[in-house]
């Protein structure tokens, strides 16, 4: 076990709303196709909304017409005037939500039902926090329902670890069974990914918001890296990658992150990884565990 400062972490409420699905739009009612890496049109469904049959633990690949497929329920921030929704409140939702945080529905038929944060995805023009609910509770949810997140985890530190920790609740972190061996944090991951395979998201915002894609095209790259087995919610290690005050290449650094959403056929895009631990000095030792997935650590069942 590692020694942490979890007794000092602020616990607070964040407010969001179940986000509607979105499609690339060419006007009020005109759907436009996205262009794939090899010049083909594709619809690109999967971002936002309530997915009844896609969950953390499911494959990143093989969903027809899907781009950036998010499992479970997508939650967006609320930026409007009123109590509890001041300017910057959406940013706080994306930045402060952590995997393992409890989500509770405040409106409608599902009022009172509880879910759990499993991921975070950052987009220009509106990011998402991704949550899991039981199959039974999913049926009760409505797009637009307000939800609250019991945010706990920002500021978490491990004594003796030279690096940053992000987007993990203390209980989720405990479930990973982390160890500190010779100053190195041993973290379970399904796979290590080299820097050259990392694509869109580089240069983006600080580690606690947004993602960085593992490129899932061309097919030769997927085969070369053995990405076919990648699942939503998998933990992966990215070599020579630093995600802390931003996202960039840094030789010798190691970042461990979680796969938030599924594959892409657009050039430079693919499953998005948000950071949970990063060390500029490379003080992270990935330990391969093919079961290293959020669904397992949170004990989620369908």
């Amino acid at each position, binding site marked *: 076990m590692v020694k942490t400062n979890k007794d000092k972490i602020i616990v607070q409420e964040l407010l969001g709303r179940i986000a509607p699905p979105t499609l690339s739009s060419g006007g009020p009612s005109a759907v436009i196709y996205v262009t794939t890496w090899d010049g083909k049109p594709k619809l690109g469904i999967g971002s936002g909304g309530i997915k009844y049959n896609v969950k953390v633990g499911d494959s990143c690949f093989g969903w027809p017409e899907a781009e950036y497929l998010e499992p479970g329920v997508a939650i967006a921030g609320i930026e409007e005037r009123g109590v509890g929704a001041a300017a910057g409140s959406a940013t706080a939702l994306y930045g402060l939500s952590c995997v393992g945080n409890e989500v509770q529905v405040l409106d409608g038929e599902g009022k009172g039902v509880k879910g759990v944060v499993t991921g975070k995805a950052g987009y220009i023009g509106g990011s998402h926090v991704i949550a899991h609910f039981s199959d039974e509770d999913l049926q009760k949810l409505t797009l637009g329902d307000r939800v609250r997140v019991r945010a706990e985890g920002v500021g978490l530190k491990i004594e003796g670890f030279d690096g940053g920790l992000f987007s993990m609740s203390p209980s989720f972190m405990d479930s990973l069974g982390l160890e500190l061996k010779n100053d190195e944090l041993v973290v379970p991951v399904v796979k290590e990914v080299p820097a050259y395979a990392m694509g869109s998201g580089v240069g983006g915002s600080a580690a606690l918001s947004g993602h960085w894609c593992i490129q899932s095209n061309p097919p030769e790259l997927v085969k070369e890296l053995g990405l076919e087995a990648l699942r939503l919610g998998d933990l992966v290690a990215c070599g020579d990658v630093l995600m802390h005050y931003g996202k960039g*290449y840094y030789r010798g650094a190691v970042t461990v992150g979680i796969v938030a959403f599924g594959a892409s056929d657009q050039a430079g895009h693919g499953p998005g990884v948000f950071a949970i631990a990063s060390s500029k000095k490379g003080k992270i030792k990935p330990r391969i565990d093919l079961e290293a997935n959020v669904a397992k650590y949170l004990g989620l069942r369908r």
Partner: protein
Amino acid sequence: MKTNKDKLIKMAVMAEIVHPSGAGYSVDFDGMPRVGLGMYGVKYNVTVGDPIYGWESGEHVEPGLSMRNSEPSQSAALDVLACIGNEVNVRTGDARGARGYIIGKHVSFLVWLNDEDQKKVNIGDKIQVKAWGVGLKVTGFEENVKVNKIDPDLLEKMGITVENDKLVVPVVGEFPAYIMGSGYGMTLNVDYDIQTTCSEDVIDELGIKKLRFGDIVALKDQLSWWGHGYYKGAMSIGVVIHGWSYHAGHGPGVDTILSTKSDRIVPKIDVDANIGYYLGIKEKPKK
């Protein structure tokens, strides 16, 4: 090298010079707050051919002047149609009638005017572009080489030769896939960056500090056909358009102008491979 330039539509698009913007400090890759100067506006002492590195508090420094179109649909047309090397003509203000060239596309288009005209222009002045280049193809390479955002006449002046059925392109240097950063995954209408937020040994190894605005570079294992992405064995050629960065994953931006999946593009090192020389707007240093 021959092209289909006689078949390309040449048309006018309009832009206006934008004011510098930005707010206070932002945090660099290593956790240091910094003020970053250099985007937008009119620069009196930074132009094509100058070094991308070493400007005090410089952040994404844009050479020359920066212009955009504030109306969204017009801006989209400007972004697609205008090409590096296209001729521009100032249409308002004290510099009315002045002529220059587009030297890059960042968020704004970057423009070179001569020193005298640069002093006369005002922020807000309208500049018209003779947009020409969309649809450009190199004869014999139509299926293998994607041409992007380059004026046909400038492409012909870049010293490119056809040898053994391959395009031999003079470049100042070659860069590996892992160093490519912000802009990855975006469309061909915007640049993507050679990252400068790695350790000094990597920066020295790749010679990034030596780059100048307007340099031609080669990007290995990079395919820019329908977006910027990784493709083993591919090769892209681009123009360096803006300066150094301290923000994680950023650095000098490159607009891609040629790209192939195969081995049909062969880079050849030439320290003078810079659009300033090719356009005849920058004198080569005496050796």
